[in-house]
């Protein structure tokens, strides 16, 4: 199972990357594949492609600002939350997606 995520925060130097790290760690722990695109002050890194969108079951939008190119995810289930919550509750978020979309 593959999950996508986009992280973004107002300053784009700290929480964007903390949230990405937290989600990646949880996914690894639970044995699911995740690709996290960071939209920070460096710009977009690890960009999600059309191919990724086709392969994934859902996308987590962990952002306190509007993200760039949200239309990419029009056709897929989205989980939107504050970036802070993604840092704190990454395990529960990944569990919820696994529960819903199963292996």
């Amino acid at each position, binding site marked *: 199972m593959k999950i996508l995520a986009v992280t973004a925060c107002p300053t784009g*130097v*700290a929480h*964007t990357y903390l949230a990405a*790290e937290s989600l990646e760690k949880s996914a690894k722990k639970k044995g699911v594949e995740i690709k996290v695109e960071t939209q920070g*002050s460096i710009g977009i890194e690890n960009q999600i492609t059309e191919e990724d969108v086709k392969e994934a079951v859902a996308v987590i939008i962990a952002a*306190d600002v509007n993200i760039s190119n949200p239309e990419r995810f029009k056709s897929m289930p989205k989980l939107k939350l504050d970036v802070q919550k993604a*840092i*704190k509750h990454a395990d529960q978020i990944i569990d919820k997606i696994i529960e819903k979309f199963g292996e």
Partner: protein
Amino acid sequence: MGSLINEDLIVLDMEGEDRDSIIKSLGELIDRNGNLNSVAEYLQTVFEREEKSSTGVGYGIAIPHGKSEGVDKPAIAFARLKEAVEWESFDDKPVKLVFLLAVPAKSESNEHLKILSTLSRNLLNEEFKDNLISAENTEDINDILSKMFSTINN
């Protein structure tokens, strides 16, 4: 990389009453290091950011930061506190390790921004945190940080 982080920007056993006084002390260190043109303007953005949501990231670590016209060159200042202070962290734990980041309003080289993002990612790494807690002097801390940043591929 010397102006970004160096031993002058690291304090062990910092004493401070509360969150705000610690942010101020670290801001003054960055100012003395020559990275700011207006410490007041810079600190204002840091406090404004802090008001939006706490930068206590849990596990006893906080990462206050500000992106401001008052910053000429990016910097990272670090303090290990003598007594942990309240930071409204989401795990309710008081904070013992503080990184204050200064970022120029106009984005500087990606290399510096990359260093800041690498630092953020490492804050969730237990070993990194343990090393910072057990370091004996500012030189040790500087080594830990330099080592971490040396893994960045430009």
